[in-house]
């Protein structure tokens, strides 16, 4: 069973790829999937009816009780056969319904197949959570099917209504199922049936929540309004949705739970009342429709109410009649929708006020329609008749089977009223589509392939055949209804069982129904009179009011809270940090212990940094702020050096220098002063928030350090660094060994940031075109110190000479730093930054052409290579039997020289080195060369 469900989704996945090749024939190919499933299911369902239930289980998330439990029982077997057979027929029909070359086929065919697969999964699922997953899958896919043509507003709204209403129901059902799971400990439907919970208020609530899901899916009052809108979907979808899928899910769930849970307080009154009300309401609405498709859509609403009322009644004869009616409905309703599709395509309209004379032109279709419609109206000798007789019998017995007294009779009268309306709208449908209208010319019809109408005619034929196969079908349905205690009469499915009360009721209904149709004009007038003058509660209006209210609430809340001001957002974030943990800090405050400093250099550096920080805040010149923040950066390096952190000091000096120049490269273009902001209260607020944050952070530091009682874990790092990491510089070994994952993440961030910089300056989405071919630039006063010279008087001969002299030495030094980083200060970061500075010197001395000569490579290439090298170096140890990013040591004997001691993390460091070089190159190309070029372009334009 699992493989057949999967097959549907696989077919759906490949359909878009095949659709352009096969065009609308793709549907025939896809129809093979449900057809094959049907053929596979047929003998197995026969086994199930003979008494052997089939199950399949695949463990998925046992901790949640979520497993792929599938089961084939008498009910799910019948449903699965319906879902696959009608699914296959509808797909076949699609192959003629859609026009050749329709551009939406690739999407539609995939969604429809996936929908059929979800529906199959829904009826086969035994696990409650799996049921929910398939349930919501049908919801989402039906949203896509209903919204097939999103260009009409009404369609978008219809799709959204279906999504919201059925998702709401689905979530309610999920809550109910979770409660049942917790109270019983069972996660399968079969478990919930064999081991039901003790009756209690919470169980009743849970069952009612599950029913909300079923009722919303099956479009019962008060959720009925989404279903007529669902006819926005292409007609084959409507046929499938209304007949075998989606709306039948609710009926299926009620039927499945009824044998055990029908005795839950409230079950029968709620389902029977809502079912009958929906049946009557749907019938009345159907009588008012002019669109043939909408007419039978309301007919479905009515029939669903009918079905829920029967299967919800929960007696043996009702269960029997219910499943019979469900099958009958699937056959006639799919046939009717597909017939409407043929008419719509042939005549170009579905409006029954415009259709005339079709009976003469389409005699076969007319006969098929009469057969299917008669089955809907419950006329002999059709399947609908035998099923409806069984329903009447079930309600006639309700008084004795359930001890309902007068309520059973009331329910029967309701059912009869609904049946009368059903007969009336069935007549309206046949007359409307095929009748000759006075004063109307015959509608011109387009001719189609005979295969187009083959499917609906076949379905109509099935309605007739099933009417005569009552005895055989009865055995099938009894397997399900046998779960209920026996009632007053044995349920039967037969065309003739003598002059019984049920037959009498049928005759009365037919007479009244015909009368209602003949007198349709006064009836319509009376209906309008009632609707217009009486204040009926309208579920749809309530739903719309709720939606609008939600939208308004969202606008009000967003309008009040989302001010769109970055300073306000950041201020709130920072204030919360200062106030919430800050107040906890004040309460936990104990007199801390201090010492002044480790050495005097700390004091000196600290003093400089504090002064520079205050000056940064006070500066109004951009350049001054940048220089002052640079001072704190160099002070930082001094602090690191004074605190026993030579690696940090080295890296900090390199970064600070690189950043300072980068800042200046950008700030040269920006206005020299910050925009003039009045010296007002807002400024003091900012300073106050800043001060509060600074004090809070300092307080956290004091509390945290004073609270420390254990030795740091890193005291034990020395030995492993040497033995596992193969190096003596503990910090650098940690970076490429135990923190290597983190370093790899950091490299990715650097690559992303560098790419972002290039994109913002060059406004490109790919990198081609940034890099220039290296070329000599010769100016009148060229010299041989550099291969390219600045063009103007900005050049400095001394700078050029120094650059020429030191560049190569610096590059060699950077490689030394990278390789020696394992045992002394240095490493990939420091080495890469040294290269960055060397390139920066070349750029500053010779301009952007000189940069291209110095590094004739694309920065993106360097970045990508670096990241790849680091990742591969991380994978290398796995080949040697280690974990990813574990350091492995390889000793390679080299003749005469002894052994080469190779540590894999050196390769990782090479990756780090390359990424940093790439970042530096990208930044220089973008913020240096890129901005230069834009300046020159502007100058060229202005002169």
């Amino acid at each position: 069973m699992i493989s057949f469900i999967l097959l549907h989704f696989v077919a759906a996945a490949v359909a878009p790829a095949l659709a352009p090749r096969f065009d609308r024939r793709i549907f025939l190919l896809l129809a093979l999937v449900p057809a094959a499933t049907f053929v596979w299911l047929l003998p197995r369902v026969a086994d199930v009816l003979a008494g052997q239930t089939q199950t399949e289980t695949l463990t998925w998330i046992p901790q949640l009780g979520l497993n792929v439990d599938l089961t084939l029982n008498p009910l799910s077997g019948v449903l699965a056969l319906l879902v696959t057979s009608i699914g296959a027929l509808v797909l076949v029909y699609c192959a003629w319904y859609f026009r050749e070359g329709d551009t939406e086929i690739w999407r539609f065919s995939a969604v429809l197949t996936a929908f059929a697969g979800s529906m199959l999964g829904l009826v086969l699922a035994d696990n409650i959570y799996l049921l929910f997953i398939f349930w919501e899958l049908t919801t989402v896919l039906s949203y896509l099917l209903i919204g097939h043509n999103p260009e009409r507003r009404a369609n978008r709204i219809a799709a959204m209504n279906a999504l919201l209403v059925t998702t709401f129901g689905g979530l309610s059902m999920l809550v109910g199922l979770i409660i049942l799971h917790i109270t019983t400990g069972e996660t399968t439907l079969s478990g919930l049936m064999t081991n039901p919970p003790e009756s209690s208020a919470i169980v009743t609530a849970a069952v009612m929540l599950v029913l909300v899901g079923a009722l919303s899916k099956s479009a019962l009052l008060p959720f009925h309004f989404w279903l007529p809108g669902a006819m926005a979907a292409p007609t084959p979808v409507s046929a499938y949705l209304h007949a075998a899928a989606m709306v039948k899910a609710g009926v299926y769930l009620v039927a499945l739970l009824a044998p055990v849970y029908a005795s839950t307080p409230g079950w029968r009154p709620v389902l029977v009342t809502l079912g009958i009300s929906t049946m009557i309401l749907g019938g009345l609405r159907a009588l008012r429709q002019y669109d043939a498709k909408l007419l039978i859509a309301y007919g479905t609403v009515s029939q669903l109410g009918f079905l829920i009322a029967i299967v919800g009644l929960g007696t043996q004869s009702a269960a029997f009649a219910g499943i019979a009616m469900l099958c009958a409905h699937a056959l006639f309703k799919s046939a009717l929708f597909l017939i409407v599709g043929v008419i719509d395509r042939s005549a170009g309209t579905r409006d029954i006020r415009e259709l005339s004379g079709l009976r003469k032109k389409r005699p076969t279709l007319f006969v098929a329609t009469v057969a299917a419609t008669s089955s809907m109206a419950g006329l002999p000798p059709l399947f609908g008749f035998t099923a409806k007789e069984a329903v009447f019998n079930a309600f006639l017995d309700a008084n004795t089977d359930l001890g309902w007294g007068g309520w059973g009779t009331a329910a029967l009268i309701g059912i009869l009223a609904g049946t009368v309306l059903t007969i009336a709208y069935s007549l309206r449908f046949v007359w409307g589509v095929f009748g000759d209208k006075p004063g109307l010319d015959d509608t011109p019809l387009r001719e189609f392939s005979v295969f187009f109408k083959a499917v609906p005619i076949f379905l109509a034929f099935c309605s007739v055949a099933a009417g005569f196969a009552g005895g055989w079908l009865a055995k099938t349905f009894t397997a399900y209804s046998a779960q209920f205690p026996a009632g007053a009469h044995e349920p039967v499915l037969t065309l003739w069982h003598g002059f019984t009360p049920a037959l009498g009721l049928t005759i009365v209904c037919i007479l009244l129904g015909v009368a209602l149709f003949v007198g349709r004009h006064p009836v319509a007038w009376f209906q309008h009179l009632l609707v217009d003058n009486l204040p009926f509660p309208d579920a749809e209006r309530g739903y719309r009011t709720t939606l609008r209210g939600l939208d308004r609430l969202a606008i009000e809340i967003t309008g009040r809270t989302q001010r769109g001001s970055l300073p306000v957002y950041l201020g709130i974030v920072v204030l919360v940090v200062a106030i919430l943990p800050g107040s906890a800090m004040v309460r936990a405050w104990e007199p801390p212990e201090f010492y002044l400093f480790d050495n005097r250099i700390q004091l000196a550096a600290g003093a400089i940094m504090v002064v520079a920080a205050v000056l940064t805040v006070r500066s109004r010149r951009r350049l001054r702020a940048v220089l002052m923040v640079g001072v704190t950066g160099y002070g930082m390096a001094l602090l690191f050096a004074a605190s026993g952190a030579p690696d940090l000091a080295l890296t900090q000096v390199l970064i600070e220098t690189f950043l300072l120049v980068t800042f200046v490269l950008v700030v040269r273009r920006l206005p020299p002063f910050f925009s003039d902001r009045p010296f007002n209260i807002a400024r003091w607020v900012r300073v106050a928030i800043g001060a509060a944050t600074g004090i809070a952070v300092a307080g956290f530091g004091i509390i945290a350090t004073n609270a420390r009682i254990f030795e740091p874990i890193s005291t034990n790092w020395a030995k492993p660094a040497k033995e596992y990491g193969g190096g003596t510089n503990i910090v650098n070994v940690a970076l490429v060994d135990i923190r290597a994952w983190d370093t790899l993440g950091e490299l990715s961030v650097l690559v992303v940031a560098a790419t972002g910089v290039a994109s913002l300056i060059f406004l490109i989405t790919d990198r081609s075109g940034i890099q220039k071919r290296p070329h000599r630039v010769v100016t009148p006063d060229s010299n041989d110190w550099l291969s390219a010279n600045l063009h103007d008087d900005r050049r400095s001969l001394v700078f050029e000479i120094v650059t020429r002299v030191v560049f190569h030495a610096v590059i060699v030094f950077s490689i030394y730093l990278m390789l020696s980083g394992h045992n002394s200060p240095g490493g990939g970061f420091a080495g890469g930054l040294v290269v960055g500075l060397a390139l920066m010197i070349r750029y500053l001395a010779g301009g952007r052409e000189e940069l291209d000569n110095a590094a004739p490579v694309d920065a993106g290439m360097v970045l990508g290579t670096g990241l790849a090298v680091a990742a591969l170096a991380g994978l290398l140890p796995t080949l040697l039997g280690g974990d990813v990013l574990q350091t492995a040591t390889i000793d390679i004997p080299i003749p005469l020289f002894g052994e080469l001691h190779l540590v894999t993390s050196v390769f990782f460091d090479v990756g780090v080195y390359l990424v940093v070089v790439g970042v530096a190159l990208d930044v220089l190309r973008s913020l240096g060369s890129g901005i230069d070029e834009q300046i020159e372009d502007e100058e060229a334009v202005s002169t």
Partner: protein
Amino acid sequence: MSTNLTLIIVAGVLVGSGVTLILERSLTRILVGFVLAGNGLNTMFLVAAGASGRAPILGQGDGPMSDPLPQAMVLTAIVITLGTTAFGLALAYRSWQLTGTDDVQDDLEDDLIRRRALHDDVSSTYEDQDATQLPDEEGFDEGGFDDGRVRDTPAEEDA
């Protein structure tokens, strides 16, 4: 463990100054504040590392070593600063190119939403139901079709 008073004051002042600048509107100032606060937090790592010692490199001198763990973390932080600052600078430059200043403006969309709230209006994506319109698989809204039922003539049909 007792606290290094000098370093904690430096950390507090740098973070405080940094946050003050971050609350400004000029992107350059925000970026400078970002770097400043970052330096302050790196100082905080030194505070957390405790008393300083010699460099954490084996075989170089005697006596207690500084704690290498915070150092490894700070090294990552320093290098990340390079990437984020460069990106911030590019943003500031682009903002200046587009608007002539590097000031962060208030979000216009948020202002529109506030106006809608003032006028008790619904959101721009809210579609009110219209009872006069029927859903249908074909056709579209625009144009003056009285009932929206427009059908395109198919290019070719089966015989």
